[in-house]
């Protein structure tokens, strides 16, 4: 008799799948469009490796960072 393997894992998100496969965001968006999956499914900028936010130039008036 077969015994199914009970798994303890968290299903991968689409963004995490693309990141682990090394598929750049632009390419992922292009191929997902083939099956009618929009950019919202990938989230905003989720393919970027986690780390410090990029430094952005600010104007002399102290404009807000582009990351905000």
């Amino acid at each position: 008799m077969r015994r199914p393997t009970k798994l303890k894992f968290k299903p991968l998100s689409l963004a995490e799948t693309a990141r682990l496969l090394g598929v750049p965001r632009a390419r992922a968006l292009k191929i997902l469009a083939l099956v009618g999956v929009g950019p919202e499914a990938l989230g905003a900028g989720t393919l970027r490796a986690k780390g410090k936010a990029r430094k952005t130039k600010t104007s002399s008036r102290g404009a807000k960072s582009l990351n905000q």
Partner: protein
Amino acid sequence: MPKIQEAVFLNIPYDAQFTRLFLAYITALSAIGFLPRATLGITGNRRLDRIATLIESCSYSIHDLSRVQLDRHAPRTPRFNMPFELGLAVAWSQAHPEHKWFVFESVRRRLNKSLSDLDGTDLYIHGGTVRGVMREVCNAFVSPGKQPTVPEMMKMYRELRGASPRILRNAGAQSMFTARVFSDLCVVAAGLRSKYLGAD
């Protein structure tokens, strides 16, 4: 290569006649929330080292032995790659029991004849069909959350298959069995999971 809990090493033949089942495995594993991995997607010098590294980095492995048969071209030889890679996974699992391996076949009792060392092992007989692969993947794995149904997987499969010519064209490839096409198929299958199963 870091170990990925959700990664499944897919030990399958890379030939055109296996294309439908290749897409079926990618669909079924993606529907559950796994990351399919194959030797197509890794780089390195010696193929054997790449395979060993890949097995070590995956928590699970699926070994499809349905096409271990004599090829058509002289000298006619059986295809040993899949059983050999199964042997590597079994050896790895003996030392690291957290690695689980599964054997898939298309014909019942054939493996008892060709590889009797596996007597007593649970086999997953898919009958050489797409639906059979999905059914048996569901039998092998029980996910902690909502389990996708076979009809849901079939919807995903049909859409993935429909998109595959354009994925090939975008990659400039003639064959499904290339690294880029494989990763693109996996991303599209994961996208179909969020589309049909509401995941993410």
